[in-house]
């Protein structure tokens, strides 16, 4: 018994660098050998709600997509941005991107570029999508979009006057959009869209956010203020799978270029690494607790 106790106590006193190394390996191996471990991805109800909400949109509907994330949270949010844009373009929805973070400008550009370069959809700038520039102010910008978008934005990201862009005709405030989709990693994010724009104006809102934001956003989801949520990388992987299935099962459509190759997104391939790292973390937490308990017992 003493021997087992000693092993656990030693495990609890492991050098933190050894734990970092093991976590690194647990992430690296599944990424190097993707086929080695395949963990199935089960869709959650919140991701399904998001999919259904966007699926209910019709051709010509206007969706405002807010990019409030940067390079540091790109691995979590970017795959869901691409999947959401793919879903919207496959339905012939008009997309209006607005960056609320300084880096959001680049993230929006990369996401749109990725979708355009995939050649899956017959889309053109100023006809199917428009990119608005970054404006500093966070909540104030959201408030401005809710009340008078033209008091803030007069040009698009290419410095073209929005009055000269037909896609912007009739767009003056938040109620002129049929849906708002928030992609966020902090403040301003989904909470600010709920508070400053969507609740007051009854505009439907869904969100895709980082894992760390989910527990704070869930009360809004439960109350219906946010219609479904994509929670971090697992949420992105679930949404990617749903969109992948949807695009493959899609019949003849004027929006989809059937000759282009439909490839699953990046989040799906990352989920094995994510799951194995989590398992290892759980094992370390259990060992750490047992070790702590044994040290305390021995000291007493």
């Amino acid at each position: 018994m003493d021997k087992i106790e000693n092993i656990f106590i030693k495990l609890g006193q492991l050098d933190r660098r050894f734990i970092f190394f093991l976590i690194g390996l647990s992430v690296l191996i599944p990424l190097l050998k993707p086929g080695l471990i395949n963990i199935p991805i089960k869709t959650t109800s919140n991701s399904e709600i998001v999919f259904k909400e966007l699926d209910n949109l019709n051709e010509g509907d206007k969706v405002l997509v807010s990019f409030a994330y940067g390079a540091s949270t790109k691995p979590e949010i970017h795959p869901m941005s691409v999947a959401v844009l793919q879903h919207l373009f496959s339905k012939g929805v008009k997309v209006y991107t607005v960056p609320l973070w300084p880096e959001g400008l680049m993230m929006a550009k990369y996401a749109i570029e990725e979708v355009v370069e995939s050649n899956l959809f017959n889309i053109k700038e100023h006809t199917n999508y428009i990119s608005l520039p970054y404006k500093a102010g966070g909540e104030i910008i959201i408030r401005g979009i809710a009340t008078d978008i033209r008091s803030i934005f007069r040009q698009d990201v290419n410095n073209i006057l929005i009055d000269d862009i037909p896609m912007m005709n009739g767009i003056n405030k938040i109620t002129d959009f049929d849906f708002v989709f928030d992609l966020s990693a902090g403040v301003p994010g989904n909470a600010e869209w709920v508070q400053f724009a969507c609740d007051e104006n009854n505009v439907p809102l869904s969100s895709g956010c980082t894992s760390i934001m989910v527990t704070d956003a869930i009360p809004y989801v439960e109350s219906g203020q946010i219609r479904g949520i994509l929670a971090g990388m697992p949420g992105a992987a679930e949404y990617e799978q749903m969109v992948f299935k949807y695009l493959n099962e899609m019949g003849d459509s004027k929006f989809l270029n059937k000759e282009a190759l439909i490839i699953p997104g990046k989040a799906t391939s990352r989920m094995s690494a994510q799951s194995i790292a989590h398992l290892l973390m759980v094992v370390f937490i259990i060992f750490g607790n047992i070790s702590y308990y044994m040290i305390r017992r021995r000291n007493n």
Partner: protein
Amino acid sequence: MYEIIGVWCVVLLTLSIFSYLYGDNPFYKVAEHIFVGVSAGYIFTITFWDTIWPNLFGRLFPDFVKAGFEFDITYIFPFILGVFMLCRLSKRYDWLSRISIAYIVGMMAGLKFYVFLNSNLLIQIKSSTVDLSGTYYNIINEFIILVGVISGLVYFFFSKEHTGVIGKVSRIGIYFLMIKFGASFGFAVMGRISLLIGRFEELIKFSSYEIVKGHETIIIYNPTLIILVFMIITLTYWAYKDKKKDIIEK
């Protein structure tokens, strides 16, 4: 050429930040300072050219800026408040910056008061009620949420000593809070691992001799491996030197 330099910078900075896992070292320090400097510079530039220039100066000097706005003299007030804010840098006139701060605090407090009351209080109270016409599953779920809300609120009620019934209810509140903190911790771990995966993917991508971008093949000369080996050798040398220095000092 710029592409190759970019790739080598990505790998060098990523590995420099990772090197902190071993311990504080000059690679990490340099990467940290570059990150702070570049972030500040980028945010300043983009805020000036995308917001201040078109939205403020575009209204004060519309013919010169040509941002699509018309002349609006009222924008002289935000301009003055902005200048006042910069007076913070002067010891003699720093009191002027308080006027700008007072405006920001007052305006945000007023704005937040309404939206918070509406979205976080009224609608949340409404959604905490139990809908008895729903399914058994929904009723049980909503009842658990109601118990969690009430017991959580009781835990933060400090006007009465937490003994007797109040003590027991607040204890239940603690359990709900603990579950919330546990979930937050789990999600935080998940987020961090996702970021690690992102960086590893990039390092793996740049661990080859060449990469394909669009229709073009770019020779990048295996930056991940070269920088990793260089860093390990340098860190080992530094660690050895530090150890030797310690021994001499002792």
